[in-house]
């Protein structure tokens, strides 16, 4: 296109050249296997860090993110119970 500035023409050419291979790469088996392994590793590392910091913080009697999360899960569980009861009540009504 004549009305496109030079820098844009260069960018588009580079993008065209890169986009196809990049999209093919993220669809490839190798990429997906690697990403799955990386995500599993990240999850494991996160759990390990949490486990270790939890032990230290509990020794100092400091509540941890895990404790807060447990409380939050209990609240969510109560909320679900209320929803279930309401549905039952509506079913009877």
């Amino acid at each position, binding site marked *: 296109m004549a009305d496109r500035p030079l820098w844009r023409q260069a*960018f588009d050419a580079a993008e065209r050249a*890169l986009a196809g291979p990049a999209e093919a790469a993220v669809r490839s088996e190798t990429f997906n296997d690697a990403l799955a392994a990386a995500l*599993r590793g990240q999850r494991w590392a996160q759990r390990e860090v949490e486990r270790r910091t939890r032990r230290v913080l509990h020794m100092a009697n400091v509540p941890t993110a895990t404790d807060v*999360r447990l409380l939050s899960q209990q609240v969510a569980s109560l909320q*679900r119970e209320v929803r279930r009861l309401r549905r039952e009540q509506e079913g009877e009504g």
Partner: protein
Amino acid sequence: MIGPRSLARRARGALRYAGGRDAPEVGATPRELVWSRDTARLWRYAGDAATSPTPVLVVHSLVSRSYVLDLYRGNSAIAFLLRAGLDVLLLDWEAPDEADAENTLETYADDYLPRAIAAACGVTGARELTVLGYCLGGDLALLSVARHPELPVRNLALMATPVDFSHMGALSGLVRAGRLNAADLVDRSGNVPAASVEAAFRLLKPTGEAAQYANLWQRLCDEEYVAGYQAMNRWVHDHVPFPGAAFGQLVEHLVRDNALMAGTLELGGRRVDLGAIRCPVLSVVAERDHIVPLAAAEPLPRLVGSQDAGELRLRAGHVGLVAGRSAATVTLPGIADWIREHGVAAAA
């Protein structure tokens, strides 16, 4: 070459963009909350008196914010449908919290949707309505109408609704059997975090963000473009978590078993028979859709039992179906015409 004057205008545009002060208001069309249940909300939009007696219930997707349908003044699918004389309601799932983590596909198809449809009929006084599903919202509508053929759904219009999940490309590659299980992607809240949803979408077009910044730089002097970019950019980075239990079913049944295509989907111990859908069906597919590729949505009309199942195929992308120029000039007029043609005759 960029001259000093052009550079100064761009700098002004960049400052406006960075400051975000001129960002248009998203989701600005006036609306009223007419029903809610848990985090699900049913909104009715205020328009001039509707000329079509069949209201339209828009069912939004589970993974994004619904304001893409009402992006900003001058670029709003909802406002377009209102101007076309339709009574428009929107079923929005909002952002799920921990209490929603155990929501299954049945929760949406058997509970929220039938109740929202009843509420929509109640508030509009209509006996039947048109359901217009977008993306995964289309799948939820499809499941609901198939499992409840008694619902007062006169027509079913589905935009970019995937049914053949074997063609979902990179979005499904990661959770194919042998790689990650749904549980591996769920966080401690029980939901798939919004950041993971966003990252998955970004993966589909690795160079997409760079191209968008290039567009922005090129048109920084264009205030209207920058305003539109701000609204769209906000939406693109504003995903919601995916309820964990429903995500698990999606992975197990729809992705791994491709159960909608195989006709083997069972929910709540009951087989889902898409052949039970007898109302008129319109499948709107986008040829340049990189999220729901054409091949994933294309088989839909062949799977339903309707004698009046058609397709509206457009040279647009996933979002282009509901926002932007192609939406305003092609998609939405096409859908509005179809809805009007398939509506009940207006009372004399």
